[in-house]
């Protein structure tokens, strides 16, 4: 490890960075939030004053060092401030996913034992009250938005603004104590606790120290040369480690501005207004924006459409090379410049990507075409590979070495090795301290030398030194004949087709692979409209013969591409069905971050899987669904099962885990 053991000077906590930023960047904006139709902004000096008042108010309410403070809500300056204020008091912020139902929230609140809860609005307060009898340790609920809160009994409740006012008034009395606590914050004290969404089992509380967050922020900021002039849009859940690194760690390390959108629905518009220079979004986002763009272009005039198609084809040909600084002919450069004025510039502008200098995507594999699309427009979109336990960064792509199928080289300060089973291990200054109150899981994840098992299987490409991820290590299995079974790899290939939203592939220990497919309502619905195919519901659309034909075509293309890869040729899909409902986090089939929960799906749809393997032509089933308000209902359907063509492999399949 080449990272210094301590951070330069006294910068060993977020509050310390805040104090430094006031010195260096006092009049520069630290936060912006769109409210009442206008971007309101706060400088670093104003931010510090606001946070200090909150911290004094917290002290007045009796917040103790080591307390956990739960923070629930959308990205708002007030909530970010609450986290830093809690840190100033020596307490530990625990941001929670705001779309979690009360039930899920109860577990986390109970597990972390929070005494204080900071909630965004009435909706979140109501959720906490609903489960209040199961979390008796919650003493105080503080809320940001006063709306609808007047009739609540305020004995154990207060508005954040009032806490700030009390803090300002109490200033003299608590100044000293606050300074004492803030000065006492060490590099190995806990900075934040983040709960992993957990593809299996209960969420785990990942404890990250100041060292983890600050060292990671420093290294990653240097890697991409981030400065105080960056602008980011904070729109991803505050409970997610990425948001904490980008909007807290890097923002405080570099001193750049965090912009909070007006509401979740206005995110696209706000992105366009802010024009961030540094941007992160999951692959799904980049995919959706292309879908929207292409659907709009279908409705455009013929001339515009022709111009768009012409220049997009040109960008596809030379854009990536220009991006990577490879030689491109003068004539092609000129045409690209014209395209930039007529097409690429306006598209980038509409997508709010005009000023983007560095954009990242991660979380799952991104379709090569989607990836190339954005890069060909001149947007420096890169991939990184990370997890909560690593304070995000494990590997990332340096400028000029960007490809769709790798996740880059180890980030600065991070060591990566591949275990005997193909599992990826890493060790870094960002490596988490422990799972809170879960020594057993800590021990099974992190060994005595500090190596952490990622749970992902992958390998380094010999030529480039870039890491490639195949699948979750525990999901990589063997089929009945011993050949390698990597479901996620196949699922991702399927999901690259715009018509396919989700796919679940089965085959561990079986003689062949079969799949569930979820169609994408936007894309398939649009296709149906253009081809005069009528349908009354998602279920009906999903069951149409033409749709099944179309999906079968996609599956067969994937089979052909798999056959080309000796390791994975055995994973070709022999039979599939299109599900009659969308897989949904409310039904427990996906995690909140929209990852497939394989075990739950296997249990719930056991009858469908049986039908896939017993060669029946169709299957009837009844499925329970949960509506947004928690009520349950059921839908019944008869699903057709299709056989697909597979490509025979001449070479004998390689043994798994050779």
């Amino acid at each position, binding site marked *: 490890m080449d990272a210094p053991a301590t951070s330069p000077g006294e910068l060993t906590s977020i509050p310390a960075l805040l104090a430094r930023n006031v010195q260096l960047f006092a009049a520069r904006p630290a936060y912006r939030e769109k*409210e*009442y*139709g*206008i971007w309101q902004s706060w400088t670093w000096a104003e931010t510090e004053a606001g946070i200090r008042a909150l911290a004094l108010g917290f002290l007045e309410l009796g917040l103790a060092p080591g307390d956990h403070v739960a923070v629930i809500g959308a990205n708002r300056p007030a909530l970010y401030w609450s986290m830093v204020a809690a840190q100033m008091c020596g307490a530990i912020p625990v941001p929670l996913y705001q779309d979690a139902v009360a039930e899920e929230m109860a577990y986390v609140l109970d597990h972390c034992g929070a005494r204080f809860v900071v909630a965004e609005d009435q909706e979140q307060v109501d959720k906490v*009250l609903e489960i*209040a*009898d199961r*979390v*008796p*340790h*919650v*003493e*105080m*609920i503080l809320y940001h938005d006063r*709306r*609808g809160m*007047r*009739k*609540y*009994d305020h*004995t*154990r*409740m207060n508005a954040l603004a009032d806490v700030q006012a009390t803090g300002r008034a109490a200033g003299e009395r608590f100044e000293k104590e606050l300074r004492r606590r803030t000065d006492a914050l060490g590099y190995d004290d806990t900075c934040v606790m983040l709960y992993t969404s957990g593809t299996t089992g209960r969420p785990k509380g990942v404890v990250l120290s100041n060292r983890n967050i600050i060292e990671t922020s420093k290294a990653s900021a240097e890697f991409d040369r981030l400065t105080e002039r960056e602008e980011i849009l904070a729109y991803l859940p505050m409970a997610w480690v990425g948001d904490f690194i980008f909007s807290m760690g890097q923002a405080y390390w570099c001193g750049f501005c965090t912009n909070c959108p*007006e*509401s979740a*629905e*206005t995110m696209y*518009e706000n992105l366009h207004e802010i024009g961030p220079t540094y941007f992160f979004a999951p692959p799904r986002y980049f995919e959706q924006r292309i879908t929207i763009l292409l659907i709009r272009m279908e409705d455009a005039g013929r001339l515009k459409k022709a111009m768009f198609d012409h220049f997009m084809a040109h960008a596809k040909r030379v854009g990536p090379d220009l991006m990577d600084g490879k030689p491109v002919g003068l004539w092609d450069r000129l045409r690209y410049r014209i395209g930039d004025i007529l097409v690429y510039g306006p598209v980038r502008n509409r997508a709010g990507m005009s000023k983007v200098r560095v954009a990242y995507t991660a979380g799952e594999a991104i379709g090569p075409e989607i990836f190339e699309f954005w890069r060909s427009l001149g947007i420096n979109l890169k991939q990184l590979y990370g997890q909560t336990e690593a304070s995000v960064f494990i590997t990332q792509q340096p400028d000029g070495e960007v490809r769709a199928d790798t996740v880059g080289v180890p980030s600065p300060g991070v060591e990566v090795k591949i275990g005997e089973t193909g599992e990826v291990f890493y060790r870094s200054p960002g490596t988490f301290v422990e799972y809170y109150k879960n020594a057993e899981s800590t021990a099974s994840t992190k060994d005595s030398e500090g190596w952490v098992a990622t749970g992902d299987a992958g390998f380094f490409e010999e030529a480039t030194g870039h890491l490639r991820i195949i699948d979750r290590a525990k999901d990589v299995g063997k089929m009945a004949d011993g050949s390698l079974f990597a479901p996620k790899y196949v699922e991702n290939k399927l999901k690259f087709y715009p018509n396919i939203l989700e796919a679940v592939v089965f085959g561990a220990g079986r003689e062949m692979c079969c799949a569930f497919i979820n169609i994408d309502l936007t894309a398939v619905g649009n296709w149906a409209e253009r081809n005069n195919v009528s349908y009354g519901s998602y279920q009906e659309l999903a069951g149409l013969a033409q749709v099944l034909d179309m999906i079968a075509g996609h599956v067969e293309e994937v089979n052909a591409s798999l056959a080309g890869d000796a390791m994975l040729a055995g994973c070709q899909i022999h039979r599939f069905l299109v599900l009659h409902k969308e897989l949904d986090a409310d039904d427990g089939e996906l995690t909140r971050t929209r990852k497939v929960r394989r075990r739950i799906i296997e249990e719930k749809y056991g009858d469908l899987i049986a039908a896939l393997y017993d060669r029946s032509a169709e299957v009837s089933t009844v499925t329970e669904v949960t509506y947004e*308000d928690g009520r349950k209902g059921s839908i019944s359907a008869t699903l057709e099962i299709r056989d697909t063509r597979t490509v025979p492999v001449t070479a004998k399949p390689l043994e798994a885990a050779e």
Partner: protein
Amino acid sequence: MTGIAEAIVAEDTRRIGGILMELKHITLRFGGVTAIQDISFDIREGEIRAIIGPNGAGKSSMLNVINGLYTPSVGEIWYKGARRPAMKPYEVARQGVARTFQNIALFKGMSTLDNIMAGRNTMMRSGLFAQALWRGRAEAEEIAHREQVEKIIDFLEIQHIRKTPVGKLPYGLQKRVELGRALAAEPSLLLLDEPMAGMNVEEKEDMSRFILDVNDEFGTTIALIEHDMGVVMDISDRVVVMDYGKKIGDGTPEEVRNAPEVIDAYLGVAHD
């Protein structure tokens, strides 16, 4: 440490004040047809007052009498302690009575923002010429009005459709914009004509919450007509029941629900 659960009880902290409007012996005739016959009731400051009744009972006529569209043939209207002479609807509006309509009456081609701005029309003070030039007082005035309008947009959670022409919006959102426009006038009395007609359960829940919040946060007195009995009984403080132009019940939802005349006439349940 006792839990927070028992410590928190939602309580009604609103103050229901004196009489804001009193209708005395109102009769309304169109030629030979009597739409309203000798009805008297009052609306108290800060309450949610519902008017219910079967189709053709005269509810909308009653609302039109209150907002000055119709002048009653017989009877008196007392508003804020004074008898109100016959007035035009815009004069009534200037006195602080705003309303929404059963069949949404928005400017379809205009944006949400412009529609709500239009609701502040009665409060604009600068002249036509100054407004056209947008200088000095007109500019300051518009900025102040815009701020109020933005607060309403925030309150009704319609930021995402601020610049969308209302004609393109789904029905439920149009209803919300219309409520916004009425609120923009900062009314002392807000009249809602079937605010939940044609909505699904979720939209009705949203609208109920907005009505309650308006009443609670701004202390606005609300008089509403509604068909959905469940909603009316849930959110109103007092209910007037009409049938064939006559008043057949008046009281709290509980009292009204149990009155035999009401059960007979409106709820249609035979009692033995």
